[in-house]
């Protein structure tokens, strides 16, 4: 941006740019990012290497450096392993369902359709509604005397859904898929706007049926959106808390639906081992970053 014949720039412009006031306008947001994101991340890492615990206000306590102890404890903790396994179970159910349904629904909603607003709103409604409210309904639907068992009768599992070791996690995954799907439909709808109509026309000229053009035009055309959807779903999957806390009564039965964040709450805040909980958080964050990078590499290479 070469600007000719400008008056000689003043010192403040040389330091802060053409509009120094921009620094002042952006400063509150930068302070927010430092206080709420940057500093806590550093603190989490610091805590994870120390025997950190809560003491009475004002008390001078020693919180010794303990190296990787918190990390090795976490990796050897059966509850944490179970929580990680549950994240895997969650993702194995949630990601294929989310990607498949969201892409098909977005494609459908992208065509001329009667009552399109109604359809779009229906699928989006769970996303804007509080988890706590929706869990109230699911508790009623899936309890032992609930509507689901009333409909399928004897075919229901015993013990019933939410207190069944096998079914607790799948129900949580189905709940999360239903709740989040509308958002991912929108991500795909946005991506579909960028797939050129000419590609569909060309595919039609080449004699491709609609299924084939879906396969060969739509799916590759929205590939970067698929990467985004999978990364976001992974982040959500590593973060779920409300579902095991409320829907399966505290990660039950017997810890079968424990999630990493629920474990962090129990260990860090209820059991007063915040250093240990911070280590779990760091492991998870690293895991999410690694999984995201791998996804990106696998999905976006040619």
């Amino acid at each position, binding site marked *: 941006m070469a600007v000719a014949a400008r008056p000689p720039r003043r010192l403040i412009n040389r330091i*802060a740019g*053409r*509009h*120094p006031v921009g620094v002042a306008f*952006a400063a*509150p*947001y*930068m302070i927010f990012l430092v206080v709420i994101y940057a*500093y*806590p*991340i550093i*603190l*989490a890492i610091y*805590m994870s290497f120390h025997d950190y615990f*809560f003491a009475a206000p004002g008390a001078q306590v020693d919180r010794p450096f303990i190296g990787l102890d918190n990390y090795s404890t976490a990796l050897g903790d059966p509850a944490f392993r179970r929580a990680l396994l549950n994240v895997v179970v969650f993702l194995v159910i949630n990601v294929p369902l989310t990607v498949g349904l969201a892409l098909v629904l977005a*494609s459908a909603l992208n*065509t*001329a*359709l009667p009552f399109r607003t109604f*359809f779009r*709103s*229906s*699928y989006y*409604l*769970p996303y*804007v*509604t*509080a*988890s*706590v*409210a929706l*869990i*109230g*309904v699911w*508790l*009623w639907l899936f309890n032992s005397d609930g*509507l689901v068992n009333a*409909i399928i009768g004897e075919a229901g599992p015993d013990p019933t859904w939410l207190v069944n070791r096998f079914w607790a996690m799948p129900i949580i995954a189905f709940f999360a898929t239903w709740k989040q*799907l509308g958002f991912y439909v*929108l991500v795909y*709808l946005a991506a579909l*706007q960028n797939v050129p109509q000419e590609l*569909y026309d060309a595919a*039609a000229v080449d004699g*491709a049926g*609609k*299924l084939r053009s*879906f*396969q060969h035009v739509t799916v590759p055309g929205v590939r970067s959106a698929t990467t*985004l959807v999978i990364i976001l779903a992974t982040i959500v999957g*590593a973060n779920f808390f409300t579902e095991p806390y*409320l829907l399966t009564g505290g990660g039950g039965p017997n810890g079968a639906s424990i999630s990493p964040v629920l474990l*962090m*709450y129990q260990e*860090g*805040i209820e059991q007063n081992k*915040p250093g240990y909980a911070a280590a779990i958080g760091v492991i*998870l*964050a690293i895991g*999410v970053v690694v999984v995201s990078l791998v996804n990106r590499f696998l999905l976006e290479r040619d």
Partner: protein
Amino acid sequence: MAETIQADDVVDPLGAEEAEPRADQPELRAPGERWKRVGFLTCLTAGALIFLFPFYYMIVGALQTEPNPDVSGAFPDPSNLTLDNFVDINTALNLPRALLNSGIFTAGVILGTLVIGLLAGYALAQLEFRGRGFVFSAMLIVLIVPFQLLMIPLYVMIVRWYGLADTHLGMILPFAVNATAVFVFRQFFMQIPKDVFDAARIDGASELQILMRVAIPISKPALLTAVLVTFIGPWNEFLWPFLITKETDMQPLAVALANYISNVAARAANPFGAILAGATVLAIPAVVLFLAFQRKFVQAHLGSSVK
């Protein structure tokens, strides 16, 4: 676009819709094509009804005197309808107080987002200053920082260091600026030609005057969008206010209702009636706001996800 759609051997009714031109032309369809269309619309409608059913069932359940979990209970029975469940949840939770807490929490987050977010979005879009690229990158990184990494240190800072447990400020702080809203503001101001602001500069207006008299007055549509995308976050948030509130007087409705579900419900006469009444009250503001501004909501999320 006027081409007739060819009948083909596609089986999948959903996939079949994909390559269709966007203009509707039902009368040009072959009979087989019409049946596929009927099947397709039936699937889509069935899916929508499955998605909506829990909402319907929530309201039906909230209005039943005796909880009826049978199939017949899914249809309202006039002799079994009551508003007592709302009275019950109101006495159990102090509903006005919980709604007030939710309202203050949400309003605080919206206020912080509008003030700090608008300033940042305007600066990022229209002002050239040192560090602009850095601020923008920081904003994008924040969108993917998982909350579980921040949860414990934020708890230590806000509850232990600053003593903000059981305060509205403590609830608001971690959410004070919604990153999506900053993005909305930035996108909005990017569309405004720089000349608009330069003209005011040539007229001798100070940067603050330009902000107050030019930027803010034209940004009304972006303000509404920002309010919409921000609202559902704090209104629906459970984990953070749950962590930092022990006093029932300070709990937002989502937390109060969750505590009712996990502690009190076992002792109540018609627990599901009261739970569903509370769930209805919690759901209604977000749902109504969404339905009223459906188009804007969708556009905002479409716009911010394109990046």
